[in-house]
């Protein structure tokens, strides 16, 4: 049996680095990474058959339901190679699969010497996978190309083997073929990991340096920090120090995950495991930071540390104003586990008290919102997401705008917006529609390459704001779901941008203000005023709805005053029924938000802030 009894396997803190293989799996959502990982856990026997469950490593409900991994984890797998008969310790480092978490992916990659490039051989490589592959190649990782799902009837392993070979510069026959579902080829894959991926190299006698590649808050243990030791040794006797903050911590526990936590004496060169220091907040133990020991500190940190920078902002407001303290608590709690989440209190005239939150991207935003709603039982309204703008006034005064309602009203010399480099992979038949979409969204074509005869990679620079709007939904619908998208920030550019305000009876509704390109301001104004006219019920008086840039009105609609709101008949037998109807309507009235003297139902806010694409998604969910 190639699996090794855990007790007899090389132990943490005393494993020869030559026996260690650190690797990660690069794959797109639904290309079968979790199933392959499950299979590896089974074949190496670190999880007994009877304890096995699907997507074993995905701990949060939300991960399992959405089939995506938000936080990475590392699992120690002992394995005896069928090729040379030697014992190895394989550390499988799980990586988040989404563009929003590119920085976390890059740190996971930095903890490895090799990567499995896992591609569904019924679908081919996706843009995000390609981006992560390039990232791995930049980090000089050994790439093992693997085609998954060979059991599927629609599998085209030859076609996609050729595609992968071309991308990484190998021969098509070098691509392994596996099925995570049936287990076919997984033993060979484990053997190839041992054979192809280099052993970690480090100086065991140097001062300790360990890279933090993940940091997770646990209710009972506090923050659990996942590390890869590069040099030296970490042990429970040490006091450790974080390079970025200089803060010293007691080491309460060191261990490895296999795949449940196993306490060890320490971690040596090349080893991957966890440390617990009693810290209560992941921001004190940040991904990318270097851990050293207090008594024998290293001179320099490992390279590559960055603070997470929020790219997308949105206001989150409780539907019921009384839930504001619950929202604050829930955000505080979530932040313990999410160093990238930032927020500050925000007051909206229309939506009441809430928080302006910064996210890494749209998925991050969706996940945070979903976790707040699910874990704290909240119902939330979120404003349309926006990016961060830098404005320069005529007098040279600069301002960073994360909320459209704070966009300066006076004379502005220039506005700068974030720009991304976007990569779209799609069947070549969609080139026309994709280019059309990118042009509409103010894109500049950078280049285009054929990955295979009928698949292309198209590169554009685009304002991030355009992507944040509904680019991805549009891309999917215009390519029948075949296109995939990846993007990375590349800086900022000056844009011809204006703030469009929406006024109800002359009163601005802050939640509806948006910063848009000058050429699209009119369309936005018309869209919002029309939508609101349909959504807001008629009132006691006529209500003008206007869209304005500064004091210039660019679109106008009006809601006529209500003329009839009475039940004509009311006799003896009707009285009870009618009173109850009025009482029920009274409850509905409580849920109205007042904008000046105008009553706006909450549903109107939600509907007005929802894009058509969101609405379709919601329908699909039901």
């Amino acid at each position: 049996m190639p699996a090794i009894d855990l007790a007899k396997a090389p132990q943490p803190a005393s494993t020869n680095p030559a026996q260690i293989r650190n690797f990660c799996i690069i794959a797109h959502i639904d290309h079968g990474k979790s199933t392959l990982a499950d299979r590896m856990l089974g074949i190496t026997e670190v999880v007994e058959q009877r304890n096995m469950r699907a997507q074993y490593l995905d701990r949060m409900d939300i991960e399992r339901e959405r089939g995506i991994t938000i936080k990475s984890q590392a699992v120690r797998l002992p394995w005896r190679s069928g090729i040379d008969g030697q014992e190895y310790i394989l550390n499988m480092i799980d990586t988040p699969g989404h563009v929003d978490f590119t920085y976390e992916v890059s740190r996971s990659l930095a903890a490895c010497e090799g990567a499995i490039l896992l591609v569904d051989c019924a679908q081919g490589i996706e843009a995000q996978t390609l981006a992560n592959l390039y990232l791995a190649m930049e980090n000089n990782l050994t790439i093992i190309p693997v085609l998954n799902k060979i059991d599927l009837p629609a599998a085209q392993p030859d076609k996609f083997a050729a595609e992968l070979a071309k991308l990484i510069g190998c021969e098509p026959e070098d691509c392994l073929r596996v099925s995570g579902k049936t287990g076919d080829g997984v033993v060979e894959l484990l053997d190839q990991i041992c054979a192809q991926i280099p052993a970690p190299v480090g100086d065991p006698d140097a001062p300790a340096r360990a890279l933090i590649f993940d940091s997770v808050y646990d209710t009972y243990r506090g923050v659990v920090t996942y590390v890869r030791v590069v040099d030296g040794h970490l042990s429970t006797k040490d006091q450790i120090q974080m390079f970025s903050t200089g803060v010293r911590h007691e080491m309460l526990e060191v261990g490895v995950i296999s795949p449940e936590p196993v306490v060890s004496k320490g971690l040596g060169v090349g080893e991957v495991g966890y440390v617990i220091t009693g810290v209560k907040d992941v921001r004190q133990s940040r991904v990318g930071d270097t851990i050293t020991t207090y008594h024998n500190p290293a001179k320099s940190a490992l390279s590559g540390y960055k603070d997470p920078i929020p790219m997308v902002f949105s206001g989150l407001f409780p539907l019921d104003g009384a839930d504001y303290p619950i929202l604050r608590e829930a955000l505080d709690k979530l932040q313990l586990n999410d160093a990238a989440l930032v927020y500050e209190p925000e007051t909206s005239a229309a939506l009441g008290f809430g928080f302006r939150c910064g996210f890494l991207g749209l998925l991050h935003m969706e996940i945070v919102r979903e976790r707040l709603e699910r874990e704290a039982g909240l119902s939330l309204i979120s404003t349309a997401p926006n990016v961060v703008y830098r404005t320069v006034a005529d007098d040279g005064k600069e301002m960073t705008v994360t909320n459209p309602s704070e966009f300066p009203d006076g004379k502005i010399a220039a506005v700068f917006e974030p720009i991304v480099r976007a990569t779209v992979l799609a069947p070549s038949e969609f080139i026309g529609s994709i280019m059309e979409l990118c042009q509409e969204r103010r894109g500049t074509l950078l280049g285009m390459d054929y990955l295979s005869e009928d698949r292309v990679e198209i590169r554009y620079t685009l304002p991030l704001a355009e992507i944040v709007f509904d680019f991805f939904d549009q891309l999917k619908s215009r390519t029948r779901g075949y296109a995939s998208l990846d993007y990375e920030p590349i800086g900022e550019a000056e844009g011809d941008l204006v703030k469009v305000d929406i006024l109800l009876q002359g009163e601005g509704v802050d939640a509806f203000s948006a910063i848009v390109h000058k050429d699209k301001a009119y369309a936005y104004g018309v869209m919002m005023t029309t939508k609101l006219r349909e959504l807001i019920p008629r009132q006691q008086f006529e209500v003008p709805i206007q869209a304005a840039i500064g004091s210039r009105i660019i679109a106008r609609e009006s809601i006529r005053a209500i003329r009839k709101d009475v039940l004509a008949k009311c006799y003896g037998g009707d009285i009870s029924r009618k009173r109850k109807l009025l009482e029920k309507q009274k409850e509905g009235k409580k849920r109205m938000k007042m904008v000046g003297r105008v009553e706006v139902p909450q549903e109107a806010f939600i509907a007005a802030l929802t894009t058509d694409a969101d609405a379709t998604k919601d329908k699909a969910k039901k």
Partner: protein
Amino acid sequence: MNEPLSFYVHIPYCVKRCGYCDFNTYTPSELREGGDLKSVSNGYIDLLIKEIGMAHAVAQTNSPIPTIFFGGGTPTLMEPTDLGLVLMELSNTYGFANDIEITIEANPDTVTKDKLAKLRDVGMNRISFGMQSAAPNVLKVLDRTHDPENVIKATTWAREVGFDEVSVDLIYGAPTESISDWEATVDAALELPITHISAYALIVESGTKLANQVRRGEVVMPDEDQTADKYLIADSKFNSAGFSWYELSNWAKPGSQAKHNIAYWENANWWGLGPGAHSHIDGVRFWNVKHPSTYAERINNGVAPVQDSETLTLEDKENERIMLEIRLRDGIALTSLTPDQIAKVESYLETGHLDLDFWGVGRMALTQSGRLIADRIVQEIISA
């Protein structure tokens, strides 16, 4: 109890059900396969008489009865002499006030001059005809088949046999009704020898044939603003002809207001006799079982036919008072409202929905445009 007690007498039978109607009424064949009216209604009068006895056991008063109203259903399907027995029992049990008002609803198609005379003879002194519309297209949508000529005949006969108070019911805002259809209807009604008019905007009640037709898109309800216009048209035509509004859907010649209906709006005590009938006595509302055979079974077993009841809380009573009083011409005394409630509606003075003159003398009363949004104003007051 010294409060006077009014009576509503329900006759739960119709020859045919109209498409818009959700009242508690039954056709003979719904009650018994192949049954005719005589066989299904046989004995019904005896049940009513027994219920009068039950009422008297629980609700006694020193005052004589001020008003009685026979509604339905189609009360004129019953023999006048049978209805007379009910009146006789009420008179013997409670006594009649000198100026008692006794109303019967009538279908203009099913009355003859002879029948009207008999109804008058047994004591009825006010009659209300279901005219609904003068436009054939509207009558068709409403499932009413009468010939508009019949209304002229019926109202004339009623006056001739001695009914001094004659009313017609009109319905506006039905599918297919144009503004000119409605004007013609109002004009036709004003040609009649009548003293009172009720005009209701059509309400599509769920579960009716009309509601299903609307849901399936077979008929289209007119725009609400057009229906509002029709109210204004009617109100001004009625006014010019000497009929003043006293409740937002009711207009009368001086002294011809329906006292029975005013009792409802002033939250007086009344007892409803018959299946499904509602009663209100001193802040308690109760209602009878709906089906005529269940009703019969209860009465025959000497058990009260009440299905359920509710005791109104102070807040319920206050909400009902506001909801009902605002419908009346004099509206609500400002002294009976809280400062918050008053503040909530002051803006309706500015928008012309509340009458400034009335406000000046301490009353919150609706203007013409205000009557059309009465429910919204009530909503403001009760949620203050």
